């Protein structure tokens, strides 16, 4: 056996989408915008879902949701969340926030001068932020929910 040269393929560490690179659709197949008509001499570029969803590549992260307290906002268990860290955590926005070190997904609300973390499922009571160690991790901008038949 030859001496070890390097780890097996697949351990190369590359960052995902390359700036200025060709767009890579998030979904497995490419979707053309509109049906091409011979009379149509407009040159449309390919619709790029990644670019549409990822406005600030350096600040955008994908995370996996676990649980159902945000069903009212369309976030199901196992959904893919697009999180932009550069957005301001304004009231009304759905955020990822670390409460006592544990990251969780909640909606920020302000009522009577106080800030609360609210779930969109009525079974969960709003959590007042006062007196807790909290740090906003980022703002959730999109949810990608797979329906039956979608690739896992």
């Amino acid at each position, binding site marked *: *056996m*030859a*001496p*070890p*040269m*390097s*780890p*097996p*393929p697949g*351990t*190369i*560490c*590359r*960052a*995902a989408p*390359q*700036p*200025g*690179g060709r767009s890579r659709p998030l979904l497995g197949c490419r979707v053309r915008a509109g049906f091409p008509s011979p009379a149509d001499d407009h040159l449309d570029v390919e619709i790029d879902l990644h670019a549409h969803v990822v406005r*600030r*590549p*350096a*600040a955008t*992260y*994908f*995370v*996996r*949701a*676990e*649980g*159902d*307290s*945000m069903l009212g906002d369309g*976030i199901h*268990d196992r959904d*893919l*969340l697009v999180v932009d*860290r*550069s957005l301001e955590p304004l009231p009304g926005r759905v955020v*990822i926030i*670390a409460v006592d*070190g*544990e*990251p*969780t*997904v909640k909606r920020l609300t302000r009522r009577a001068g106080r800030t609360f973390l609210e779930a969109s499922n009525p079974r*969960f009571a709003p959590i007042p932020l006062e007196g807790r160690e909290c*740090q906003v*991790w980022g703002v959730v901008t999109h949810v990608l929910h797979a329906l039956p038949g979608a690739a896992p």
Partner: protein
Amino acid sequence: MIALVDSNNFYVSCERVFDPRLEGRPVGVLSNNDGCVVARSEELKALGVAMGAPMHLLPPAVRRQATLLSSNYALYGDMSRRVNLVLGECSPDVEVYSIDESFVGFAGLPASRLEALGRRLRETVGRDTGIPVCVGLAPTRVLAKAANRVAKTSPELGGVCRLDAEAAATRRVLEALPVHALWGVARRTAERLALMDIHTAWQLREADPKRIRRAFSVVLERIVWELRGRPAIQLDDMAEARQRIMVSRSFGRLTGEWRDLQEAVRQHGARAAEKLRRQDSLARVVLVFLRSDPHRLGDRQYHNSVVVPLAGPSDDSRALLEAAGRGLAAIFLEGVRYQKCGVMLMDLVDAERHQLSLLAFRDEAARGRDRRLMTAVDRLNREMGRDTVRFGLPRRGTAWALRCERRTSRYTTRWNELMRVKVR
């Protein structure tokens, strides 16, 4: 003016972004195969854990308290790329110096605006990536390095420090700075400087450049000029020996040819490997980077870097070049005209102190012996049972596979390892 942007305890900071519970606790990152500490949080430093300390020699009390993780180079490489993306928004002139340090050029900006810009840079990187950075601002790279050091060690500055060439504050800083702490001054050089009664950075600044050149080298003369505020040093070849080795060059003319890049990376890699062996070190990681010409505004702009971990610490040119070649293939993009590429060897370890130095033979004949030895070892293990012969490793596991059992998820580069967030 030039800014040196340096991430604080970079590997640990990356881990903390995705696991906020690690905040405020002693955290260490271990090299993959040899289990030495390659990054420490401030809390771990306070426990007396030295850089490069082997994990199995840490006191039990420290091991109980501390979170020790395998290195997650996929994550660190991606977070480094993100930090540089943010820096690229502030200036077209970003030069990656290592995985956690970049020089950012701010030519033509009024000095009065620089500190505000430095603060904004720091805030934006922190917001977008969660990585805390310090910013050193100065007219030259050597001074920017010194400024960064001040920013790191003086919390009251809020992470940003500016050193002008002719200022009383700069003099105070340089007078307190021993020469060996200067960028590009090796410890042995510092010892020889001490014989000339030059102990501090200020004394070196005041020395006669010609005399320094005669007694030492052109590089040290340039450091004198840089200390005086006159830019004299290019980033190429200016790597701190013993910590990282970098070889990079600009192409004579822009090229988009795969073969040109391949050849350049091969040459840079070979040169870096020679330097590595000369200083008796082994590298654990190879970084490859390339970039287009940021000053050609009409050209398609692209810069990227990639981090390739080695199976084990090595100074074998073949292993290093193979890794560099794989890295290049991963980031090379057709249709871009490249101005520069480079190879960096990182997370170095002393060969003589390393148990795996058995693998670090120099000449061809020794390598042949090495290979025959490996073959014999493999046959013994195959015929007489696994682990019949091991390489002085006090732990289980083979020397070949990357040991990364304490590695966190590759949160940003693998779909199936994304950060999980409770929605409860």
